[in-house]
């Protein structure tokens, strides 16, 4: 059983390929996308994705726009922003739009795994709470 199911979004192909291999070794289930639009497509097809690692600066739909879209369509999925162009402004913007955290490229792989685990845990807790609430509601209705 993998630690978490992750969608990795970045326009740099070699980066995505290598980090996929490294994260897979660390027991993460990785799905790759090379643009914002592709990421949204992949999410539509793979609902089991828990955490999205998203590059901020991409041609076409950029990280912030993609984040907004993801949060609109999949509010429970957690997003970790990853960028080389680290600016406080972008970070604040990302966090404000509901990103779980923000990491600068290049980042330590173990730190990234830890963040992904935390994000997945948060997502699961969130889902559990919702499930609990739903069960309670059903139970209450039966009573």
């Amino acid at each position: 059983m993998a630690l978490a199911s992750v969608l990795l979004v970045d326009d740099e192909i070699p980066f995505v390929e290598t980090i996929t291999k490294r994260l897979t070794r660390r027991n993460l289930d990785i799905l790759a996308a090379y643009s914002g639009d592709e990421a949204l497509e992949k999410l539509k097809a793979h609902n089991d994705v828990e955490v999205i690692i998203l590059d901020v600066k991409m041609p076409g739909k950029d990280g912030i726009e993609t984040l907004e879209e993801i949060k609109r369509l999949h509010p429970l999925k957690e997003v970790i922003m990853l960028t080389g162009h680290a600016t406080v402004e972008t970070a604040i913007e990302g966090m404000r739009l509901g990103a779980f955290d923000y990491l600068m490229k290049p980042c330590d792989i173990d730190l990234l795994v830890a963040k992904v685990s935390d994000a997945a845990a948060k997502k699961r807790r969130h889902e559990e709470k919702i499930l609990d609430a739903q069960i309670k509601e059903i139970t209450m209705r039966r009573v």
Partner: protein
Amino acid sequence: MTEEKTSNGLYYRSLIRNIVILVIIVSFTPMFLVSGIILYQFHHSYSEKIHDHLGELVLNHKQNIDSFLKEKLKHIRFLAKSYSFEELSNESFLQEKLSNLQEGFSPFFVDLGVINERGVQIAYAGPYKLGGAVYSEAEWFKAAFQKPYYISDVFLGLRELPHFIIAVQENWRGRPWILRATIDFVAFNTLVQSVRIGETGFAFIINTQGECQTRPCLDMDDSKQVLADLLADKKNIIRDINIVEKTDTSGGKNLYVASFLKDGDWLLVYQQAASDALADLNRTLRLTIILLAIGGLAILTMAFVLSRRVVMRIAKADQEKQMMNKQVVETGRLAAIGELAAGIAHEINNPVAIMVEEAGWIEDLMEEGTEQEGNMEEFKRALKQIQNQGRRCKEITHKLLSFARKTDSRVQSVQVNELIEEVVNLSSQRARYANVEIHTNLQPDLPETQMSMTEMQQVLMNMINNAMDAMEKKGGRLDISTELGKDQIIISIRDNGPGIPAANLAQIFVPFFTTKPVGKGTGLGLAICYGIIKKMDGEIEVDSTVGKGTTFRIVLPLIKNLETK
């Protein structure tokens, strides 16, 4: 550079000249006007004062002479009335009376004579031997017989010396006789000439025929015409005085003050050289001219010194401004580099991240050991990737450095197309992220032109950055083209961004005008571009339609070599 200095020198020299002319006009005009008016007024009133003074003097003198003549006449009349013809016909009696007169009254009487109706001098007392002299044909005798008393003009007479006589007619037993006295000409002359003012002023008397009755101090030939005019002017004499300023035949300007005396028979004339009479005035005039000259000299000196100083200050300020402009251009270049660097930082970060990850991957595989099947291939692949990404980094830094290192702003031969390609290449990464497509349509075989490469690079960088800033949100298309005009290179930079509103269009080249948020733009970019293009003797124009886009057109003169410039 030398040419620039020479043209600057000419400019500053003409500036000095203009300031000097202005200062001179502004200072001299009122100075001359005021001085002229004051001098004219002073001259006028002073001349009037001199005229009045001389008039008064001559009037007094005329009265003196008149009184003198009347007094002498009275003495003779008294003598004629007091003593009978018989008594006076006695020469010793007459001599006694003459002595009495000379002692008691005045030494002016030279002699006395008693003349009968036939004009025979029957008695004579005096220094000449004139007893028995016959005057029946003498002018004075004829005139004296017409009037109860008579004062003659000066004549030589029998004694052949200038003199004049006072004659009184009386009757003895129904027959007229005349008592006459001769007046000492020298003494009378002295009396008339007693009025002397200045160095040239003197008085004399002429009769109605213009003949001198006293001895003039100078040769009177020069003044003959003037004296004739004065005699003719009898009717116009106001208050018994006539004052005229006339130039005599020798060219000297004289002041004539004339007054008739002896019931209009004689004219007392006072003559003085105008320069002498108005000596004080002339002295004042000279002093004023000296003062004006000194003042003028001071103004001239001040105008030259002051204008030179002012222009030197202006030149210094210009120099400082030029330095400041240079600094502003440099700042703009740094800002452009800064903007570029931000894009490049991202660009370089990607290969660095890949290298770090590949290195991490090798580390991961090392934990398994090198013997593991396929690991060696993976190491090789990863190392190759690291090499590739390292090269990518090198290229990126090389691009940035090639831009930033170009600090040489010297004018040199530049191929504009190559420069555009270079700048487009530098901006490509930013364009990719901003979703901007850059298309170039460059005229082939564009000749090289003389310009500062760094400055032109800065202009192009600014134009492209601005276009991308404008299109960043929605993306767009940027078209850069070059074409060869007549001795011109025309660069067009056209975007299809939101365009510039008409209200802002007029101000885009104004320094510090910006529509970007605070901290994002200095408002100097286009102002600097404008300055650079103008310095190159080129033109920069903008055409923009809101919603359609903006086109910047840069027209540069084609300069084949430095000599042409």
